[in-house]
């Protein structure tokens, strides 16, 4: 299949090559970028949203815009993470530097928009840092219950979790933030394992930075986009072949319809969640029944937050950052 002759910009996934659909009229991708046409064509649809994940569609834009938004979310939106660890005592078996690195990777809930970026070589202050303390000592539980071999019955504090990290408010931070607004996102992140006599005494300092500096500052676990898959059946597929066709695609993509005359035929239910594998081309009798395409100006974004910021906020922040970058550059052009 070389062209499907409709008005959408598509790529057609063939067995050995990818073909470009020749649309019947000019599409967004044929037009050069212009702010007026951009406004006319842009459509945004939120598909799924909760505290951690968001899926939304950006429709009618050029790929370079989608890619910029993705890059901004990954490496330009600031967040807080533990940057400095003062180790007063560490007698556990985990080395100081490994421990410090592990602590750095713990996602923190603290709104980075309320903080300043720390100026290197200056003293930390309440505007640019958060201070935490991790003091824990493992001891043997002296108990009559000597028979037990359960670790919880023998040792106290044998596992250090992120819930043991205690926030030490600096200056007016105690008034400005609630205890619940600051600290690790999850309570059950295992940091180290201790045995009797082992002790940790650490001071942790969290700062604001961006993902380009270190991946721990990235507010997203992943942020990616893909093109909308569109699958069409060109002829009727029935019986055993229909079931085989169903198995060639991701679950839910192809459905089976039971007709009144007793036949079972395949139909496309929802091609959105297809993984675009080309399994169907393994069967010579099926490959002419399917046209697999992708819509080239329809981007499905998936944003997974690590928990510090809601995913919708991350996207808006990302766009704002691009805007601020451009504004500050414009200012500098004016001055020069």
């Amino acid at each position: 299949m070389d062209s499907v002759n409709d008005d959408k910009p598509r790529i057609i996934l063939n067995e050995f090559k990818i073909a470009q659909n020749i649309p019947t009229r000019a599409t967004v991708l044929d037009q050069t970028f212009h702010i007026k046409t951009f406004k006319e064509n842009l459509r945004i649809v939120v598909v799924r949203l909760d505290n951690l994940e968001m899926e939304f569609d950006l429709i009618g834009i050029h790929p370079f815009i989608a890619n910029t938004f993705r890059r901004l979310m990954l490496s330009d939106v600031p967040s807080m993470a533990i940057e400095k660890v003062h180790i007063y005592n560490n007698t556990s078996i985990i080395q100081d530097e490994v421990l410090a690195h592990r602590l750095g990777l713990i996602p923190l809930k603290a709104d980075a928009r309320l903080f300043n970026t720390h100026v290197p070589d200056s003293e930390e202050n309440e505007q640019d840092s958060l201070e935490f303390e991790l003091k824990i000592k493992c001891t043997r539980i002296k108990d009559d219950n000597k028979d037990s071999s359960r670790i919880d019955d023998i040792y106290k504090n044998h596992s250090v979790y992120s819930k043991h990290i205690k926030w030490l408010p600096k200056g007016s931070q105690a008034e400005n933030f609630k205890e619940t607004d600051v600290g690790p996102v999850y309570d059950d992140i295992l940091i180290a394992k201790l045995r009797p006599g082992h002790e940790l005494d650490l001071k942790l300092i969290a700062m604001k930075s961006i993902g380009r500096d270190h991946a721990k500052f990235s507010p997203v676990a992943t942020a990616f986009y893909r093109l909308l898959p569109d699958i069409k059946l060109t002829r009727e597929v029935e019986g055993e072949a229909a079931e085989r066709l169903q198995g060639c695609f991701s679950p839910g993509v192809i459905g089976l319809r039971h007709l009144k005359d007793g036949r079972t035929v395949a139909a496309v239910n929802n091609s959105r969640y297809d993984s675009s594998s080309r399994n169907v081309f393994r069967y010579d009798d099926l490959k002419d029944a399917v046209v697999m395409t992708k819509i080239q100006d329809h981007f499905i974004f998936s944003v997974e937050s690590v928990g510090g910021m809601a995913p919708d906020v991350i996207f808006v922040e990302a766009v704002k950052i691009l805007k601020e970058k451009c504004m500050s550059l414009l200012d500098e052009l004016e001055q020069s």
Partner: protein
Amino acid sequence: MPIAQLAGNDPSEEKSKTFVFHDEGHTLGNVLRCVISNYNDVEFCGYTVPHPAESKMHFRIQMRKGRAIDALRRGLTDLVKMCDYTIEKFNDELISFKAKQLNTDN
């Protein structure tokens, strides 16, 4: 802070210029290139990050007529407009999505 700097060109030549952006990379370079290369009077527009270890981006504009700096200014202004509109549209959609979700939950 990123600083736009003019490098190595004859200062009297306004048509073609290379701008050096500090602390910028492909994120800004590519959008700006795509936007500016669409303008009518622009003959050539390209960017490069000369070395991955240096956070510098070189941005070249060659004009058929007019000044290169005006094209850059127009490109940045267009990007600001694009961002504004995207945020506006996204927030509208978010409000209607949340309203819809509330309706289905009840």
